[in-house]
């Protein structure tokens, strides 16, 4: 169930997950047909249409009942839009701002100022990268204390100028390294949560892929918590949970189920506010469509929050978190 799990390469460099095998086969066939028609002038439109329909039906079947373990794979899919894709698509005049003003620039956390639908905003996200080179640059989206301190600095900047904050969460978790511990990883995360909770401006959190534990909640204390349909948000990775509680990492799918980490579960538990639907087959199949849906979802939440006084905004944000888990949900 690791992120690089059985991935079949097929047409158009699309990466398929193991449970999408039947769709991959159909689409490969469609590609072959198309190539044939190009060379021999055979009319294959009917056959392509039939196969496409079949592929779509299968996709609908698969994505209509994804297991939590499959959602974990989709959430980590390399071709899903990542934080920087959202910034590029949703933010105009984006001006990246770097550094924590203490010691370093951590590229696992990206951020800056720009406009969302004309409104100046501060954007902060965890960026995992999309190929080996960028993954290394962004440390696979696993931030060090510097990354969380950079986020805090950007929240303070937003507060100073009254700009709403949009965060895009996509991380396996905070970086568990010697250097990170040495420079106070725990304090950096704790302070981030503190600073976000105190922000006198609207904060909209969108979990776009994997919301991994403390590293995610560090950017997650907002007025609205949105999640993409196939995103996950969990206190621990299913793999680590399985190793600890089942003493067997192969039980990760069972752990994924037990942890109730899907957007649907979390909405039911009252821990998130809204699920943003994904295109059929997941955001990775039609990134442009996914980006647009997210834009609309954020645009729907922002106006109401912009109308609130800072004190009320903060008080409601607190109430929101204080209410979590207090009432039993059936």
């Amino acid at each position, binding site marked *: 169930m690791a992120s690089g799990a059985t991935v079949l390469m097929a047409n158009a460099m699309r990466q398929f997950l193991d449970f999408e095998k039947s769709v991959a086969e159909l689409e490969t066939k469609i590609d072959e047909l198309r190539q044939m028609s190009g060379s021999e002038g055979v009319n294959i439109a009917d056959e392509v249409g039939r196969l496409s329909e079949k592929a779509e039906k299968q996709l609908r079947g698969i994505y209509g009942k994804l297991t939590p373990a499959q959602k974990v794979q989709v959430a980590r899919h390399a071709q899903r839009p990542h934080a920087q894709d959202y910034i590029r698509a949703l933010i105009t005049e984006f001006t990246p701002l770097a550094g924590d003003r203490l010691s370093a620039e951590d590229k696992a956390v990206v951020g800056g100022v720009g406009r969302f639908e004309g409104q100046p905003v501060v954007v902060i996200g965890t960026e995992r990268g999309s190929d080996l080179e960028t993954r290394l640059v962004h440390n696979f989206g696993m931030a060090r204390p510097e990354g969380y301190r950079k986020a805090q600095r950007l929240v303070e900047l937003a507060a100073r100028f009254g700009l709403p904050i949009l965060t895009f969460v996509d991380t396996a978790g905070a970086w568990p390294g010697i250097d990170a511990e040495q420079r106070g990883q725990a304090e950096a995360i704790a302070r981030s949560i503190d600073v976000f909770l105190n922000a006198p401006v609207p904060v909209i959190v969108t979990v776009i892929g994997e919301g991994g534990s403390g590293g995610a909640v560090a950017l997650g204390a907002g007025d609205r918590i949105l999640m993409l349909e196939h995103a996950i948000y969990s206190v621990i990775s299913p793999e680590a949970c399985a190793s600890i509680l089942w003493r067997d990492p192969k039980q990760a799918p069972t752990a994924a189920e037990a*942890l109730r980490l899907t957007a649907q579960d979390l909405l039911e538990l009252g821990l998130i506010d809204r699920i943003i639907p994904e295109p059929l087959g997941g955001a990775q199949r039609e990134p442009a469509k996914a980006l647009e849906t997210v834009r609309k979802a954020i645009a729907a939440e922002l106006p109401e929050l912009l109308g609130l006084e800072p004190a009320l905004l903060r008080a409601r944000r607190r109430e929101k978190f204080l209410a979590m*888990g207090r009432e039993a949900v059936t």
Partner: protein
Amino acid sequence: MSWMTEYVRPKLRGLLKREVPDNLWSNCAGCGQMVLNKDLERTRKVCPHCGHHMRALVGERLAWTFDDGAFTRIELPKVPVDPLGFRDQKRYTDRLKDARAKTHLDESMAVAHGKIGGHDAVVAVMAFEFMAGTMGAALGEAFLTAARLAVLQKAPLIVFTASGGARMQEGMVSLMQMPRTTIGVQMLREAGVPYIVVLTNPTTGGVTASFAMLGDVQIAEPDALIGFAGPRVIQDTVRETLPEGFQRSEYLLDHGMIDLIASRGELPEVLGRLIGLLNVRNLPVAQAA
């Protein structure tokens, strides 16, 4: 070390183990030496040979911290049990039952109030003995209750932390205790009452990355393991040998993460002194002077 300690002791230890009731001696995890339990009562479970601070139970901690060991326990709010309906190899509800039977505690945090150095104080103690001091909804609620009580009494809140991190069996409800407890810290800050954290062995994961690192003063017991990621996770990730003393109190002190290290013997005096120095706004005039 003479041959007596090296060669005779282990044999003696073996003999003693079989023939002497368990409750007479303890083995120090720090130096391996045998210590009379009667002596440990006097030293507050600090090894008289090597100074190792053994794990303290909630009741012991409260008794050591308050003046004359006198305190009043606070009843804590009930929270929905088992929000996820979680089951691994065992039902979570059964694990809770077992923990309750074994520890005679309700949950992984207990709250009491009383006097420290003559000053009113609220104390919250984490119970490592209760499911490794993991943080779930009950702990979050306990911490918030302690914070509210401290605000009401204009008394400082002192928290003794000991935790393996999040309570996995509560999933995201557990993770959300990080912002929830942080709100408790903010309430203390706004009320102007001091918040003092005493980090004890071990304090890791989500507890460290929330209320445990947000104290006005951060104290640690000697040689306590304190960190975000556990040493094994780090070792597995970076595949390097961890530095000597890594993530221990002294290491954190050297790296600017905590204010001071206090032994168990010194602690009540240090706490009393800090309360007297910090809570001046809320103290009666005569005391503050």
